[in-house]
């Protein structure tokens, strides 16, 4: 008997929840807004699914009914990735220490 790959994925999922739990508790409250914008950006890694969906069409018919949704998802996720990381960058650049 082999273990179902789903069980492996579930293990990764559960362990990641715990990693997330401990990592996020150590985030300083003053950076909670950048935390939200960066989590936003990284959750747009969903773009990998969008890319697979978009490239599933064949060459004669780039836009079939399934790949169109992939292309739309690429746009949405790309807005988020670029927007999320850049706005985080912009915010973090503003946090400065007292001039001694």
């Amino acid at each position: 008997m082999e273990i179902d790959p789903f069980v492996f994925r579930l293990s990764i999922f559960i362990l990641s929840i715990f990693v997330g739990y401990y990592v996020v508790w150590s985030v300083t409250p003053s950076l909670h807004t950048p935390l939200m914008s960066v989590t936003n950006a990284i959750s747009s890694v969903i773009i990998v699914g969008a890319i697979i969906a978009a490239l599933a069409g064949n060459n004669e018919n780039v836009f079939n009914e399934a790949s169109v949704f992939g292309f739309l998802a690429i746009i949405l996720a790309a807005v988020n990735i670029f927007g999320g990381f850049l706005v985080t960058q912009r915010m973090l650049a503003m946090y400065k220490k007292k001039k001694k």
Partner: protein
Amino acid sequence: MISINLLALFYLISGVLFILALRGLSSPETSRQGNFFGILGMSIAVIVTFLSIGNFSTSFIYVIVFLLIGGSIGAFIAFKIPMTAMPELVAGFHSLVGLAAVFVAISAFLNPEAFNLGFTGNIKLASLIEMSIGAAVGAITFSGSIIAFLKLRGIMSGAPITFPGQHILNLLILISIIFLTYFLCSTQNSNLFWSLIVISFLVGILLIIPIGGADMPVVISMLNSYSGWAAAGIGFTLENTALIITGALVGSSGAILSYIMCKGMNRSFFSVILGGFGGADQISKSDNKEQKPVKSGNSDDAAFLMKNASSVIIVPGYGMAVAQAQHALREMVDTLKKNGIKVSYAIHPVAGRMPGHMNVLLAEANVPYDEVFELEEINNDFANCDVAYVIGANDVTNPVAKTDPQSPIYGMPILDVEKAKSVLFVKRSLSPGYAGVDNDLFYRENTLMLFADAKKMTEDIIKSF
């Protein structure tokens, strides 16, 4: 083409880099490096996905074009957006993640072969369940975030919208979603799939409309969490480790933030979600209010008090964001410091409309982050401080939360502003705050009310100095 095992390893690396990106946020010094790790992780995930498909033909060019279109829109928004608009920007971004999850789920449903999930009309059961969860949660995230966005932007009133039978309706809809998923799995009927998505959109709307404006920190955090769970659901469907790891990270991050925000208001998560707080029914209480004496003053009085102080604590709130007073405030603090006065800032966890909102605005105004303190760090200092300058905060300073068990805000942790020798309270009128509770602080012996716009008053104080 790269092998499927190598691909999985690269996705794992992306996942680890995303963990490091969050880890970096434990202090401002390491945060910029953390963000770089995040970007690196994302680039790796995207590039290896291209390599794994190896289809560098016409479609590939279109993918690049669409990516660049989205990317430039995102970059444009990121550079143009004013810092005060950050809560609605984040809500807007959440809605995009949600909708992207819905689209990917739809695409996988229509063309399951592309994802190795079986065939149209005969999709693997586990994949179909995961797909439905991803699509439903994504749709809820999308429509919920749109409502949150409209409320934060002020396009829609921040007042809670409630109607009789609301909770029962929501419950029925949730049950119907479970049934739909069940029938979808047994029949593979695409109409059921579409209904599932439409109903989930509806749930998102119904879920957020009863929640009032000042509960938005919880709502945004909650939607943040949902966007993570949606991504994880899609990750399971696509059997993609990077998505599963990221979804779990984001999901738990949003959940923790919701918890912190609820604790900051001493309210249970469910009471926030059920909504209706701060609605019209609470305001009726104000009719038994007798005319209590209030001391009010002008900018000269305020400047005089501050000149004679040796330490001042600033308490900013949402009103500061509305009045865009953060720059004027920093100038005022510069003036105080020039006069040898010690100044620090006290931030309540739920000040503003999203977690960390005040900190970003102060950072924007060049306030060094080591002068800004959280509630627990600074609360004992109020007793030793000469002047507390409350600008745009209200409920979070109300001593009633400690003394009156009848009050709706009883038990909420508050900043002990009333312990300062004198309190300067900038506010436009004596109207109660969001919770509909009269602030006891207005009538204290040591409080001087400064009736004016936050920005105007702060500028006047600088002039009077």
